[in-house]
C-alpha cells in the first residue's frame, strides 16, 4: 500500500494527476427510479473489452484462408487447452453485447436522453450499434462453416440489390463476384483491424461526450429540478414549502467515483458470471466445414439480431406493384436506419407532440423487431 502510494505521488508530482482526475471525482450519476438503465452502456463496454481480450487470444491460433480457417478453429476447440472456452466466450459475449447495446439504445430512447444537447452522443452511439452488427456479420464468417458461408452469401447478395452502388459494394465486400477465400481474407481484415480501429475512435468520442455533458435525467425530473432551483434562488421559503407539499423527492445523485463505479463493477462481475456460465454450459458449435458446391442446408438462418430483417424480406412478395419486393424491403430498412440515426433531430426538446411521435416510433420498432424475430424462429 505504501509502495503504491509513493508510486502515485512520484507520478503525481510530474504529471499533476490530481487535476487530470478532477472531472472524474466531480462527476455524479443521478439516482432515481430508472437509474438501473444507466448500467447497460457500461455492461456493453465491458463486453466489448471481453471481445478485445478473447479476440486477441483467438488470433494466436486462428488462420484465415479457405483451407485453414475451419481447421484452425477446430484445432482451437479440440487441441488448445481451454480453447473451447475462449471461443465460446467470444461467441457468447458477441451476442450478449448486441443484446445489451440494443437495450441501451432503447432505454436511452424511452428516457428521452437523446434530446438536446446530447444529439451527438446518440448519433455516435447509433454508429457504434451499426459497427457492432458489422462485427457480428464479419465475425460470423471466420470459422468458415456451412451456416456462415450461406449467411454471408445471402447477406452480401442483399447488399448487391441496392440500386447503382449495390453491385460495386457487393464486389468490394466479397473481394470478387462470389463468396470465396478472398471474402474470408477481407472479412478477417475488417473484423480484426478496420472495425476495431473505427470503433475505438467512436467509443472515445461517445465516452468523452458523456463525460463532458454529464448524465441525462428524464425531462420531467429535469424540469422539476430546474423549477426548484429557480424557486430557491428567489424565494427559499416557498421552495421548501413546495418541496414538502408536493412530496417531491429532491433530485438525488451519487458520486461516479467510487460509488457508481463500484456498483458498475459489480454489474460487470455479474455479466462475467452469466457469460462464463453460458459459455461453459452451452459451448458454441462449430458445425461442418463450408463447401461452396454443396446445396444450402435446410433451416439456414442469420444471427438472431438480423432475423427481423431476414423475416421481413421473406414476407414481401416478389413484386409490389411495379417495384421489386426485395428492393422495397431493403429501401424501407435503409430509410428506417437513417431515421433512427438522426432521431434526436425529430424531437430536440424531448417533450410535446413530437416526443409522443418518437415514443410511438420507438414502441413500434421494438414491438416489430421482437414479433418478427419470434416469427422468424417459429416459421419453417
Amino acid at each position: 500500500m505504501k509502495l503504491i502510494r509513493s508510486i502515485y505521488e512520484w507520478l503525481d508530482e510530474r504529471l499533476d494527476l490530481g487535476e487530470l482526475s478532477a472531472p472524474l471525482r466531480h462527476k455524479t450519476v443521478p439516482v432515481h427510479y430508472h437509474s438501473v438503465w444507466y448500467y447497460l452502456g457500461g455492461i456493453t463496454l465491458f463486453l466489448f473489452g471481453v471481445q478485445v481480450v478473447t479476440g486477441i487470444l483467438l488470433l494466436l491460433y486462428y488462420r484465415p484462408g479457405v483451407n485453414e480457417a475451419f481447421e484452425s478453429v477446430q484445432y482451437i476447440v479440440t487441441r488448445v487447452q481451454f480453447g473451447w472456452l475462449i471461443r465460446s466466450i467470444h461467441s457468447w459475449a458477441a451476442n450478449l453485447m448486441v443484446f445489451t447495446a440494443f437495450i441501451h439504445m432503447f432505454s436511452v430512447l424511452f428516457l428521452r436522453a437523446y434530446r438536446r444537447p446530447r444529439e451527438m452522443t446518440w448519433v455516435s452511439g447509433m454508429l457504434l450499434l451499426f459497427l457492432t452488427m458489422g462485427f457480428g456479420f464479419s465475425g460470423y464468417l471466420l470459422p468458415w462453416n456451412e451456416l456462415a458461408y450461406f449467411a454471408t452469401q445471402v447477406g452480401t447478395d442483399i447488399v448487391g440489390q441496392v440500386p447503382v452502388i449495390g453491385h460495386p459494394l457487393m464486389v468490394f465486400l466479397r473481394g470478387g463476384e462470389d463468396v470465396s477465400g478472398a471474402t474470408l481474407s477481407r472479412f478477417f481484415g475488417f473484423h480484426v483491424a478496420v472495425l476495431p480501429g473505427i470503433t475505438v475512435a467512436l467509443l472515445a468520442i461517445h465516452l468523452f461526450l458523456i463525460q463532458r455533458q454529464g448524465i441525462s435525467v428524464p425531462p420531467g425530473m429535469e424540469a422539476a429540478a430546474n423549477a426548484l432551483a429557480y424557486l430557491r434562488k428567489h424565494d427559499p421559503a416557498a421552495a421548501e414549502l413546495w418541496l414538502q407539499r408536493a412530496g417531491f423527492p429532491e433530485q438525488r445523485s451519487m458520486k461516479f467515483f467510487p460509488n457508481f463505479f463500484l456498483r458498475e463493477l459489480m454489474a460487470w462481475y455479474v455479466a462475467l458470471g452469466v457469460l462464463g456460465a453460458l459459455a461453459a454450459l452451452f459451448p458454441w458449435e462449430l458445425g461442418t466445414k463450408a463447401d461452396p458446391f454443396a446445396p444450402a442446408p435446410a433451416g439456414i438462418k442469420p444471427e438472431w439480431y438480423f432475423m427481423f430483417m431476414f423475416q421481413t424480406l421473406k414476407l414481401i412478395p416478389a413484386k409490389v406493384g411495379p417495384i421489386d419486393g426485395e428492393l422495397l424491403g431493403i429501401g424501407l430498412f435503409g430509410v428506417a436506419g437513417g431515421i433512427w440515426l438522426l432521431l434526436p433531430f425529430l424531437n430536440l426538446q424531448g417533450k410535446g407532440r413530437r416526443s409522443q411521435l418518437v415514443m410511438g416510433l420507438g414502441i413500434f420498432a421494438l414491438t416489430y423487431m421482437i414479433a418478427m424475430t419470434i416469427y422468424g424462429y417459429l416459421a419453417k
Partner: protein
Amino acid sequence: MENKDCGCPRRENPDFLDSGLLPAGSPGTPFASTRRRLIEILLGSGFLASIASFLYPVARYLVPPAVSDLGSDEVIAAKVGDLKPNSGKIFKFGSRPGLLLLNAEGEYKALAGTCTHLSCTVQYRGDLQQVWCACHNGIYGQDGRNISGPPPRPLESFQVVVRGQEIVVRRTMRA
C-alpha cells in the same frame, strides 16, 4: 450506546482501550474495526481468488499444445548419387533440418542442421571442407565439433547407413 460506524451496539473492551495503543480519537471500537477488517479480507480474498480462476484458463490457453514429433528416429536423407563428393545437403529430420555431407574422401556424415549458437541453419562449405553457419561465421568440423566462431557446443551427429540406393540417417541411441 451505539457504535458510530456501524450502528451496532458498542462492545467495550476497556483493557484494550485503556492500554493507550490507539491514538486518541480513533473512530469506532477495536472490535468494530476488526470485524470490518475481517469482512474486507474475506471479500477481497474471494474476489482475488475468482480473478485468479479467470486468469488460469487464459494462462493455460497461451501455452501452445505440444506438437507430436512425427519424425521417427530414422529418415531417408537422400539417394546414392544425389551428392557430389565434397558437398552437402539439408534434409528434414522430424521437424528440424539435418545436414548430410559427402566429404572429399567419399564418406557420408550426418549432423543436426541447427547451429548451437542462435539456431540458424548451417551449410557445408566445399572450399573450407567444413560446416559453416552464415549468421555469425561459426565453423564446425565434419564431425560436428565446434572449431571457431561463437558456437558453444558441437552439432549432434547422426549415424549414416547406406541401404541399397537409400542413404538412411539414424539418431544414435543414448543409454
